[in-house]
């Protein structure tokens, strides 16, 4: 597995762990567990972590690993868009998730923009690798 794919998948697993802890606390709160007041408003953070940080990031990492390679180096395309995407998607999840919790809409917007740029960079790199066998 190439280094950037390992980074994406490990980051996705860390989001899975964090999102599961948060989700378990929210579910336990429905079962009577008392939580700090801030955590009762953590549902948007939980969903951001699980949908973008876990599921989308895992798919990006696996696609980077498994899509057909180019015949000439760099075989998986240029590295800078992928590294930038890795930074932006993780920063985006944190800011988009914390925005509603801290009641800061501009933070949510900046996170969404970072996520959008990250997936656009990834799609731009992956696009030429979606091809028929032997091409």
């Amino acid at each position, binding site marked *: 597995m*190439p280094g950037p794919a390992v980074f994406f998948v490990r980051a996705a697993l860390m989001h*899975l762990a964090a999102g599961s802890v948060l*989700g378990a606390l929210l579910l336990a709160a429905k079962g009577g567990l008392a939580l700090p007041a801030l955590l009762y408003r953590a549902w948007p953070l939980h969903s951001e972590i699980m949908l973008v940080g876990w599921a989308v990031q895992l798919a990006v990492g696996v696609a980077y690993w498994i899509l057909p390679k180019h015949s000439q180096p760099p075989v998986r395309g240029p590295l800078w868009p992928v590294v930038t995407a890795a930074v932006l998607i993780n920063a985006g999840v944190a800011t988009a998730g914390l925005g509603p919790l801290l009641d800061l809409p501009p933070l949510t917007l900046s996170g969404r923009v970072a996520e959008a740029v990250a997936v656009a960079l990834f799609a731009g790199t992956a696009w030429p690798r979606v091809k028929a066998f032997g091409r």
Partner: protein
Amino acid sequence: MPRVTRYFLRCAMVFLVLAFALGVAMRLDPDLRFLWPTYLHVLVVGWLTQLIFGVAFWLFPRASRERMRGHEGLIWLSFSALNAGLLLRIVGEPFDLGAADGPVLLVSAACHLVAALSFIANVWPRLKAR
């Protein structure tokens, strides 16, 4: 395909069908809107996450020559906890179970957490850069 992957994938498909049936039911009867959080978790945990767990265990790089897919006990624990947790949630989250409500949801929460952490413990050592 390993046995536990077949179990993951078949259970995932059952939850996929259940989720869409819940979606139709909520559309037909607006009084069933209280099922929304359950519907969402049946789809995202029961289908999507369960499918990912099964396929990742099957196809991720091997851990070693001796233990190709890492510690199998961890993935069976993950499978059992995920499905037990989700079933408890389906019963306990939308319906009033009286005094049993609290314990059912607490056990369900613990199961969800165990499922995720045991999957991570299985997969993490298999991710190596080459």
